[in-house]
Every structure is written in C-alpha cells, then in structure tokens.
C-alpha cells in the first residue's frame, strides 16, 4: 500500500508570486482559447507565448531564488 505524504509550505510573499504567475498563465490560456475560437490560430499561440514570456521573470525567481546552505541571512 502506497503511503503518500505531501508536505507543502510557503511564505506569504511566495503565495503572492504564485498567484501572479498562475494569473498570467490563466490569462494566456484564456487568450489562447478565445483567439482559437475566432479562427486566429497564429494570434492564439502568440498570445499564449506573450503571457508565458511575461511569466518568465517570476518563474525564475520562484525556481532559482532559494537561500543556499552558506547564505548569510541578514534579515
């Protein structure tokens, strides 16, 4: 029997950035679907790409900005 235990925790400011990132991707998906529905497939994919590009800096922060073992916490 698989006993799966998920431990999830985040700081309040991480939650805010996740909300922004999810919002950007959701907006991109809405743009994708809406624009596909009006037969503009090229614009649809570019719309999605636009929102993904906008989401890149936030994603870089979420993924790579983690305190290292030797980091000095001056907070």
């Amino acid at each position, binding site marked *: 029997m698989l006993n799966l235990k998920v431990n999830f925790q985040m700081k309040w400011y991480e939650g*805010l950035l996740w909300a*922004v990132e999810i919002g950007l991707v959701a907006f991109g998906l809405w743009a994708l679907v809406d624009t596909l529905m009006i037969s503009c497939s090229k614009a649809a994919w*570019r719309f999605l790409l636009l929102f993904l590009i906008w989401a890149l*800096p936030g994603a*870089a922060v979420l993924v790579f900005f983690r*305190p290292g073992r030797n980091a000095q916490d001056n907070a």
Partner: protein
Amino acid sequence: MKHNKKLLMAILWSAMGASLILFVATRFNVYAFLSIFVTAALALAWWGMNFPITETARRNTHLGVVGFWTLIFGLLFGPFPVPKKPQYVVGEVHRFSEMEHGWGRMYSGALGPQIANHGRVYTDPEEVNGIGGARGKSPSFVTGYPLARALFGGASALDGYRGVEKHGGEPAAPVKYPWVNYESEARGTKLGWNKGDMLLPEVAKQLGYEKARYTPEENSLMVKGIGKWLGSMDVAIAEVDPRWFYSHDFITKGTPLPLEEVKELKYAIQLFVDQDWTRVHNDPGNSWWSVAKSGQAYSTSAWQAVRLAAMLRDMGYVARVGFGGINYDSVESPISVYSGKGEYGRLSDAVVPSAGGLRFKSASVLTNFPLKAGDPDQGYGITRMCANCDRCARACPVSSIAMGEPTVENGVNMWQVDKDKCVRFRAGNLGGNCCNECLRVCPYNKPDTLFHRLGNYMIAHSPVAPYLFGSVRGVGLEDWLDFDYSSEAGHVKNRPARWVQENPGFKMQFPYYVGNYIYTEEDRSTAEAWAAGEGAKMGKVGLTYKGVEWGKIEPRLLDANGRSRNVHHDFEKGALPAELPLPGKTISKEEAQALLDSGQAFAGGSNHTDANVFPPRSPKYERGVLTYKEAAKKWKEEK
C-alpha cells in the same frame, strides 16, 4: 571562474537595460518589449543559480516581481477616466452634398470617363449589354456578378418604401424627388405600441411598470429593444444636427434638399448590421466577395430600418429611412459619434466598439417620435487609440488613409481620407470588386467576446494600452500577434493593387453638368494626375511594408509604359476603349451660371465658396462655428 560568472551576470543585466532603452527609443517596439522580460528572467535565473541568496533577497525579489505586476495590472485595468471625446467641430461646417462624396463623384463622371464606365471591364460585352440594356444603366462593380447583385438587390428592392406612393398601406414606388415625409393615415391619431399598450417585458422590468406612458426614456428603451429584436447589433439614438442632412441628393442627381421641409425630424435612430467577422477576416482585399458582404449588411439594415419606420408611421409619427449603398438623406457617421456609441477614427469614419469597430453598415430612421438621446460626450478613447495606430493607413492599397496628425476639412478636425483615391480603387479594383483592407486590419474588428471587450475596456481607460496595442512607429502588439492569419483561409499574401486609370494626360473639363447638378473647378480631384497614371506606383504595388506583402502585377496586364491596362484580370479581351462617354457634359461658364441663376441646376460642395452654392447655404446653421450641441439645440427648438 567567479569573475566570469559575475561578468555574465553583468552582461545579462546590461542586455535587459539595453532592451528597456530600445523599447523607449523605438517608441514601444514589441520585440524590445518582449526582450526585457526574457533577459530579466535569464539574469534572475543566473543570479539565483550562481550566487548566495539570502532570505531577505528572496523576499525582496518575490515582492519586486509582485509589485511590478500589481503596477502593470493597475495601469492596464485601473478605472482611469476615459479621455474626453475631442471637440471635432473647430470651424464653420457646411452641409455636405451627396454628389460630393466619392461614389457620387465617380458615378456622376466627375472623376473621369474611364472610372465612370468601370462596370464594363467586369463582364464580357454580352453581359454588359444584358445588364445595362435591361435596366437602362451601365453595369457597375456591384451589378457585375450574381452574388453581389443578389445581396445589394435587397436594398434596391426596398428603395420604393422610401417613397410617397402607397402599397399595402405603406409608401411604395421609387419617386423622382425623394425628399418627402410619408404621412400615415394614422398620423395625428397617435396609436400606441399594441393593444393594451404593453411594454416589452425587459423594458417593463427595467422601468418597474408594464403599461406604456410614452415618456422619451421609455420610448427609447422600446425602440432599442425592437431594433435589437430586428437584428441590429446595437441601436443609437441622437438628437439631429441639421448639418447632417445632405444639401443635394444623389439619386436624382443633385436635387437640393431644403431644411425647411424636414423641421419635424428631431431624432435619429441608427441600426447596425455586421458585415460578418468570417467574411471580413478571410477577405484578401482583392476578392469578389468584398462588395457582396457590404450588400448583405446594407440590405439587412435597410430591412430593419424600413420595418421600424413602418411601425412609427402607423403609430402616427413621421419616419424617414436612410440606407445604403446610396439611399441616405443624412451623413451616417455623426449619428454614431453623437449618439454616444462611437468616435471618429483614422479612417475619418465612426468607429463603434459595440458594432465591430468599422465592420458594420448602418441604416437610420429620422423621426419626430419623442426619444431620449444617448450622451453625446460619451467617449471610448478611440481617437486616442487611432493616434497611436496606423494599421488601416498602412493596409490601404492606394495610400488614401492619412498617416500622421488629423487635419481640418469643412470645419471638422479629424483624419481625412482621400475619397477619390479610395473610390477609384474600390470601384475600379481590377482584381476584385471592392477592397475591405482597412476594416480587416482594424484592432476593433473582432467578434464580440468577453476577451475582446476587456481589450476595448483597456483601450478606453488605460493610459498605456494605446501605446502597447498600436505603435505608429514600431511594430505594435497587434501587429506581432498577427490576427491577419486565419486558420480557415490561411495568410493573405498576394494583393495586387490595380485600378481603372484615366488616359495619360487626362484633365477633367469643368463646369461639368450632370442631371440637375453642376460640378465646378472647385470640385477638381486632387488625385487627378495620379488617376491618369502619374506616380501611380505610390500605391503599394510590389512592396513589402511592415510585414504586408503587396503582389506584383502580371506583365500582360500592363501596357508598354508600365501603366495598368483597364482590363479585367480574368478577361483579357475586355480592355476599355480609349474614348468613353461621360454621363454628363462639359458646358461653358456662362451657360453654367445661367442655369444656376435660373434655378434649373444646382451646385454646392462643402468646400465651395458661398457664391458658388446653389441654393444658398443656411445662414442659421452654416455660418460661424457651431458645436454639435449648439446646432442640435437650435434645431430642436425650430418650429
């Protein structure tokens, strides 16, 4: 090693800074804009991967990105006030002669015999004789093919219902002089909407009572409800400014339309019919569908307006109908603008966001039925958007749409389209029967989805959205997204721009007398030399410009001097003869003056000097600077 890491990080941040500088320097180029985000992401990733990150740095970068997007969200979606609608009227405005607009000038022969006879190049001689002979008219780009003929025919069939003679209780039969008000037998009796005077349920719900009281507000709600029921995308209601009435009628070739006879008409109701997103989106601009979809919208809007007017007449009120192609009594675009439904755009036409931007055709009912008009000051940020967007001007095959700043013509400050060039290309387009390009590329031209409405909201409210969506200098976001590509029809690649030209050295002879009207030297087209082939390549033939390709003309369709031969693309034998008759004739200045003085002929373009306007202009409305509100107020008080 560490030095190299730092160096690369400095390079990445510099790249981001350079993108930012480029973005501003190129006036919001979309590629520079996207590069800012990509380089910022790379720099942040490199930083995070290679340098120690403190908890403080982590928190600050998170909040920095969140703060940035909060700011952007606020700038794009914040409830900033919509910019005030510009005061378009800045000088003396004269009534516009219907003989003066592009189609009036072209059909009447004022632009030259070749374009006036353009219909002959669309069909073979047998068809030309068949169409022309049967109707006593030359064929035109509209009547040359069954589909266009059928779809425009709907409007022609309804033309009789604008007349004074009755058929089945309604006005019928085309009349020689169309400036008439049909008076219903019920007039003066003032019948109600229906038995029991019940309001439409949605109107009753909105007002909180069920039985009609005939207040202007209630009347407007009912008219809007019925208009939408008839199929109109939206219904505009405005108080009439008498300068909207044409000064001379086209159908009867120049008959004057005196204001004294229409003093009862205080309100304008405008109905909008979509030319259809799929047709407009998929039309390559040189197609044979173009004018047919125009005909469909004209015919449908005509039917709606005729039905609405019939109802108002039966209720006992005066109702005049104006519909397209060319059966209007008044200019349509100011009704859209001053009813609070739209604003003037770069095309010198009204952009109405609730009717697909420019994609509609409208018909109107002028009446004395008491109505509550829309707010004439209601803005949408359209003129501001058009100042930042030149997609229609770029797309125009003959450069007839103005780039740059608005200019003043006939007292109105807005972009002015070169109507002679536009109409010569649309009527004389040898690769298709119309054009459609300006409509197709307009950012407002989208189906009415929630997502598109959000875009319209941003353009109206946000101070940064117009810069982002339509950069007049760089490649704007709208360009990059490339809505031109249709998954149904593919990409528009080849748009050969060819049009019926006049003979080399052609110069129109004035005064030119046609029907009841005399065109004078003041009516000479500024595009006359161009029309005869001089500098005609200022059209975008063979060019690629900002991503739009303009096809090359096949050599067989050019004469020895490289001029466009007036021959249909698919019909090699059908070149127009060098000499063609004009619908009217050139007369001497003395003859013209005698005809005008004796009241046998009329004249009067809005650009004419007062002495050359017959009959004379209204001293009350066509002298001095009158704003829309001032003119409409005066007209409302006129008994």
